[in-house]
């Protein structure tokens, strides 16, 4: 299963990379969103998907899955949300001011 998830992460990354190479800011943001999905899955897979109970001691199970990666992912999820929110609004403001969502037109020139 771990390998399968890692391959899935690879596919998600590929898609995201391709989006990052795009000229449209929304595509780029979308790419970053997909990237964060991939990262979370990767952390999960790296923690090992051992058979065990959810990390709740009330379950009174023999084994529990690794809780630490879960905590890390949770933190990462919230952070990537914060960042996504910011860049979205940034893109929107940039569109307001610059009148474009095309990164090609956001190059900026030296002598201005």
């Amino acid at each position: 299963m771990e390998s399968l998830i890692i391959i899935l992460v690879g596919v998600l990354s590929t898609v995201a990379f391709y989006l990052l190479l795009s000229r449209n800011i929304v595509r780029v943001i979308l790419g970053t969103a997909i990237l964060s999905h991939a990262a979370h899955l990767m952390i999960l897979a790296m923690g090992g998907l051992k058979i065990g109970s959810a990390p709740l001691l009330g379950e009174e199970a023999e084994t529990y899955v690794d809780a630490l990666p879960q905590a890390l992912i949770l933190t990462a999820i919230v952070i990537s949300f914060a960042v996504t929110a910011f860049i979205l609004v940034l893109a929107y403001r940039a569109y307001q001011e610059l009148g474009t969502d095309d990164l090609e037109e956001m190059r900026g020139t030296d002598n201005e």
Partner: protein
Amino acid sequence: MGINDVILKTVAKAVVLIIFTFGIYLFLSGHNSPGGGFVGGLVLASAFVLMFLSYDTETVKDAIPIDFKKLSAFGVLLAVLSGLGPLLFGQNFLEQSFDYFNLPIFGKTEIATVLIFEAGIALTVVGVVVNIILSISEDE
């Protein structure tokens, strides 16, 4: 013909009520089952999202006159202060304590300082999410 949202609005009232309850439940029960400050806060925030979707911003703001920026700041403040509290007792920063008390009505109850910390987090989450949505939707 204008759009009539009566169905949505009516159902939203009930649903928001459920979400609120559920959110607070999640917040409080996080210590021992899924939930906690973040999740609780997020679910509470989603209740607000639903309100904004169903009503307009003014209605919601009139109904719940809170400055969400300050709420979120207060949340962070609470979390930090709850971390500083233990220093007064010679403990470490962010050291959490818990104990079990026999309260008159509640019986044997666990009281953990982590709740204060998590409350801070929850308030932050609610404040921020609502603040973001309000900021965007109120932009002229």
